[in-house]
């Protein structure tokens, strides 16, 4: 991995490093050659690490005051809000932090889609990232159940009932998940246990994600392979760390805006009503970051079909590196794919919007069109466009377009070579 053998300067450092090469690792991380043209879309990896650590730290603190029991959970959350010193702040950071985490992860994923970061040789990074995303959804869902409000309870009921669609063993599986005959105290206690566990699993996967990243190195906006280290790269520290830090600062301003000025705007007011197994709220919606998948679920008039399609919408992303047949990574040089990329962005936003609306009338029609298009994009458009598209000339190195200010230069150069 390391391009040059690192030798600590001090004798003690050398003694330690010979026995556990932590200093070599630190040296690898600071010197790590990074493409010099990374734009601000590449700062979300650092932002996501910040989000994960924020959730872990605030979560550990909240667990000191929260009581995981069906009779006490709701009151203990109010106790955190009213009695615990700065409890309101810590809880609002944690609850809004989940939303911020998903906001950042969606930007990170779409960055990857635009610049083709999921393509060879980075498939494993992409797949580990999707596993992190799945664990994030599990952690967020279980965390939303813990306050034991109406949305907690009925969200848990609806999501766990998805498994009852499995033929033959479905009902046994849901009973096993509940530990009761409905969502009840045993469900709450196990969700709390798993909610505490999952962030540490994510942390482990993040290490693998970064490890896998450091084998081929970062993709970059022009999407070409680069030699490292070379005149196309800069050391990670201080060039990237300072850029990441600046982006993180801007991100934290938005984060703080939600925490201090609109802490409940992303939540649902029904969750301030204690869970009642006798009454379902008139309009159940999941948190905003799950809405596109919820829209897909509801667009199918068949229970099993809806569940299968919803899970397929996520699992199809795992085979994305093999569905995209184009050899060119970056959409900057793919004039047709570039347009379909933005249509997909709009499609996912539309699905998110109709997921929050009642499943009837025009919303149902939109949900169905959006669902069909979503799958069409991955199964038909990506493979076909990869074959048919005439891509624009790709520069030979990063320095070319950067030094001349545009990609035009490389084309001109190629034309000259022909003459």
């Amino acid at each position: 991995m390391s391009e040059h053998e690192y030798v600590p300067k001090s004798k003690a450092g050398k003694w330690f490093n010979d026995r556990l090469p932590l200093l070599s690792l630190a040296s690898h991380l600071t010197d790590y050659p990074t493409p010099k043209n990374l734009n601000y879309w590449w700062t979300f990896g650092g932002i996501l690490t910040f989000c994960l650590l924020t959730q872990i730290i605030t979560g550990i603190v909240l667990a000191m005051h929260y009581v995981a029991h069906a009779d006490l959970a709701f009151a203990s959350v109010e106790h955190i809000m009213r009695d615990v010193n700065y409890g309101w702040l810590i809880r609002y950071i944690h609850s809004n932090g989940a939303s911020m985490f998903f906001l950042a992860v969606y930007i990170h994923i779409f960055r990857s889609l635009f610049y083709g970061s999921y393509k060879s040789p980075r498939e494993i990074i992409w797949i580990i990232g999707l596993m992190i995303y799945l664990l994030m959804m599990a952690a967020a869902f279980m965390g939303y159940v813990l306050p034991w409000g109406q949305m907690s309870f009925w969200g848990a009921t609806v999501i766990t009932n998805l498994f009852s669609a499995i033929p033959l063993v479905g009902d046994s599986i849901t009973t096993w998940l509940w530990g009761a005959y409905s969502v009840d105290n045993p469900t709450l206690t196990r969700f709390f246990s798993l909610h505490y566990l999952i962030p540490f699993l994510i942390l482990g996967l993040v290490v693998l994600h970064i490890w896998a990243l450091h084998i081929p190195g970062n993709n970059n906006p022009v999407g070409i392979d680069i030699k490292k280290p070379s005149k196309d790269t800069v050391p990670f520290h201080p060039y990237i760390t300072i850029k990441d830090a600046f982006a993180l600062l801007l991100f934290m301003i938005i984060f703080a805006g939600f925490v201090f000025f609109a802490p409940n705007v992303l939540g649902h007011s029904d969750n301030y009503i204690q869970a009642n197994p006798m009454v379902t709220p008139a309009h159940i919606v999941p948190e905003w970051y799950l809405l596109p998948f919820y829209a897909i679920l509801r667009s199918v008039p068949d229970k099993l079909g809806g569940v299968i399609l919803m899970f397929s919408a996520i699992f199809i992303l795992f085979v994305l590196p093999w569905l995209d047949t184009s050899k060119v990574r970056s959409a900057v040089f793919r004039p047709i794919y570039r347009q379909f990329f933005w249509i997909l962005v709009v499609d996912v936003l539309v699905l998110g919007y109709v997921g929050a609306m009642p499943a009837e009338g025009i919303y149902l029609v939109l949900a169905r069109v959006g669902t069909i298009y979503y799958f069409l994009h991955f199964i038909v458009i990506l493979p076909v466009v990869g074959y048919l598209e005439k891509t624009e000339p790709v520069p030979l190195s990063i320095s070319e377009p950067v030094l001349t200010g545009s990609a035009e230069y490389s084309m001109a150069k190629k034309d000259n070579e022909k003459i």
Partner: protein
Amino acid sequence: MDKSEKKTTTRRDFLFTTSYTVGAVGLGAVIWPLVDQMNPDKAQKALATTEVDISQIEPGKSITVLWRGKPVFLKRRTQEEILEARSVSLDELPHPEKDEERVKSGKDEWLVMLGVCTHLGCVPLSNKGDYKGWFCPCHGSHYDLSGRIRKGPAPKNMEIPKYEFVDANTIKIG
């Protein structure tokens, strides 16, 4: 592969196979308790029956009681409602069941069923929907006066729990 090589089974192969087998059985025996501990415990199973006094329920009215953490609808239907439920042809039903099969004979006015939508488990609202029975607000399933699914994503009729009439005024559920 050489033919003689393929045929030879050594003492070591035997040891490997038996070790793996015993190891797999041992691993399974350890994993099962860890899996089964998540199933409903004895305390949950102990809540298996509920007795309900039905003497106060007027015809056309219904009450909801909690049984095993789930709502149970007890509806005392009027004659017109029973007739309407029975006038439906079975061909029209996604999950064909006669109304007679869903009540105790001689107690036709009493409809006792789990108030749980068979789609994703919400509690349907009574006297709502296109079939005058129940309507689930979550994903729009319509049930008729016999609790049978008529329209929407739910695959099955609302479930009839095991219950019995202890006396004229008491129903024991479970």
